[in-house]
């Protein structure tokens, strides 16, 4: 082996080891687990296609898939609109701009469990701040987390709030990349503020939009800590997410093989959805 080759292997060895131990091994292990029955205590046993057959007919799993899509259908549009609106606001000359930018980013770095507990208090039916405000303006209080109709939307709103700062940064970077002359040119051509946004700003943020959609889809499918802490999957299992169902099978029922099967199915669903999104949104290469 030539010296150059040897040093090449040596230099990449730490990362290769890391990748093998923490990425490739778990993936392969999960794929193997799909075909095993294992309760963490006794020896694993070969299960053939049992786990896959169970998954196909497991109403609770498909309900969790449905719940997660409900979550995404609220969270994705809300995340896009709030992130873009905040980025546009924070991109303007503004008093205390650095403070506002930091304030909106802060929830991103706070632990999800802490945020969930905090928002449980905000959403509390009798003493929660949100309901107190509603009552003050003469509205009836809402049982945010205990009403099956509002529980998932409430969680989606909270997750959006927690993550918005991250996506704002992506949009802010994109906004700063738009040449000033493009915006001035369209302004001279007679465009109103809305037309400037519609014809220049928004299309030129397409790469950022694709990134935000993809990342928040991947994150959204992994919804877990919020329902785990705030609702335990209820009421009426309406906030049971895919990952929460996976967690329950693995660590409450000790069904590691089935949990791994759910995990592999989740990965496949995410891959398929992101692929469809890319087709729908169009090609970023257009820019």
């Amino acid at each position, binding site marked *: 082996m030539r010296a150059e080759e040897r040093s090449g292997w040596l230099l990449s060895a730490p990362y290769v080891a890391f990748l093998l131990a923490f990425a490739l091994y778990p993936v392969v292990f999960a794929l193997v687990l799909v075909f095993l029955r294992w309760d963490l205590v006794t020896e694993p046993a070969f299960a053939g296609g049992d786990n896959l057959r169970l998954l196909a007919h497991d109403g609770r799993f498909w309900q969790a898939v449905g719940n997660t899509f409900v979550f995404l259908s609220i969270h994705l549009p809300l995340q896009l609109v709030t992130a873009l609106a905040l980025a546009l606001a924070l991109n303007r000359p503004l008093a205390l701009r650095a403070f506002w930018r930091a304030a909106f980013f802060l929830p991103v770095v706070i632990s999800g469990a802490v945020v969930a507990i905090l928002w449980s208090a905000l959403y509390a039916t009798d003493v929660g701040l949100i309901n107190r405000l509603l009552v003050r303006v003469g509205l009836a209080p809402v049982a945010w987390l205990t009403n099956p109709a509002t529980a998932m939307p409430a969680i989606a709103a909270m997750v959006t709030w927690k993550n918005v700062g991250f996506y704002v940064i992506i949009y802010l970077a994109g906004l700063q990349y738009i*040449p000033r002359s493009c915006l*001035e040119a*369209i*302004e001279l051509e007679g465009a109103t503020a809305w037309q400037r946004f519609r014809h220049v700003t928004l299309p030129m943020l*397409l790469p950022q939009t694709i990134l935000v959609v993809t990342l928040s889809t991947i994150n959204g499918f992994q919804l877990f800590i919020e329902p785990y802490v705030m609702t335990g999957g209820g009421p009426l299992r309406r906030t049971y997410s895919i990952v929460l169902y996976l967690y329950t099978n693995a660590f409450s029922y000790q069904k590691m093989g089935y949990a791994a099967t759910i995990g592999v199915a989740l990965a496949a669903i995410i891959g398929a959805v992101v692929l469809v999104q890319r087709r729908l949104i169009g090609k970023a290469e257009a820019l």
Partner: protein
Amino acid sequence: MPSVSFEHVSKRFGDTTVVDDFTLDVADGELLVLVGGSGSGKSTILRMLAGLETVTSGTIRIDGRDVTALPPRDRDVAMVFQDYGLYPHMTVRENLSLGLRLKKVPRQEIDRRIAWAVGILGLESLLDRKPKQLSGGQRQRVAMGRAMVREPKVFLFDEPLSNLDAGLRAQMRIEIGSLQRRLKTTTIYVTHDQVEAMTLGDRIVVLADGRIQQLGRPIDIYRAPANRFVAGFIGTPRMNFLEGRIHHEDGAPAFVAEGLRFDVPREDVASVGAVTLGVRPEDLLIPSPSDQRPSTVTGRVVLVERLGGITHVHFDAGPHRLMAALPNDTAVTVGDDITLGIRTERLHLFDADGRSHL
């Protein structure tokens, strides 16, 4: 009625005055060039006219209408930007038509105007391309086409050629000039390049520190710069300057500087003391039997630049470094002593304030 007029327009950013009491009338159909170095305020003046920059004080009129407080979209001006400002996600056709579509111009009229502009600019084959797929010169033409289809009252050019290489710049300069003469639309053109200013402008405004230094036809400014700044800024190669004094000996004025003395046989030289004398490189000549000049300057050659058509000879006359633009066949080498005749009728004298004296 002037097409564009600035009346005592000033612009301040905090304590910094960028444009100071700028007053100017631009005639209908004129191509006026604002030229100056960076920080001269030339771009700010253009942007105030476009409405992209607010005016601190003063009034701007377009066709007699006060537009000082109007937003850019109500001013009916079109601008070509230094980086072109094309919409990267749109094709050339969409770039050209967007402004008209926003104004709800009928489809047929849009097509007619695009066909007209595209024909003049030679963009026919590029209509379906995106800006990224165009060369610098093509982007430049699209930017001009986008301005043309609007049929605005005024064209504004903000250093439109500075992103092009030298050859293309010369070509586009010629195209812009002929296009403007053809369209006869009032045009204000901003540049830091005095060659562009000299070749394009019907009139040029030389700016420094936010103030007009001189306004006039290019050749008039070249021949009679109002002050030392303009003399040094306009003209390549740059004018030579000598610090010295004017003495009157037996009624005949002479210029005296350290290690240097020559007659200035002109009646218009008033009796003055400390002056700066300016002489353009082409006004220093090799004496020939047919052209004997009484005033001469002698020095030692330190650098010879042969440009082909002409030769730039740098020489030291005493402590003064001068440059002469001589014919290409001039036989001089570094270290030679040369004596050159001075076209005294084309000398410039500037007083201590830098104002012209002749």
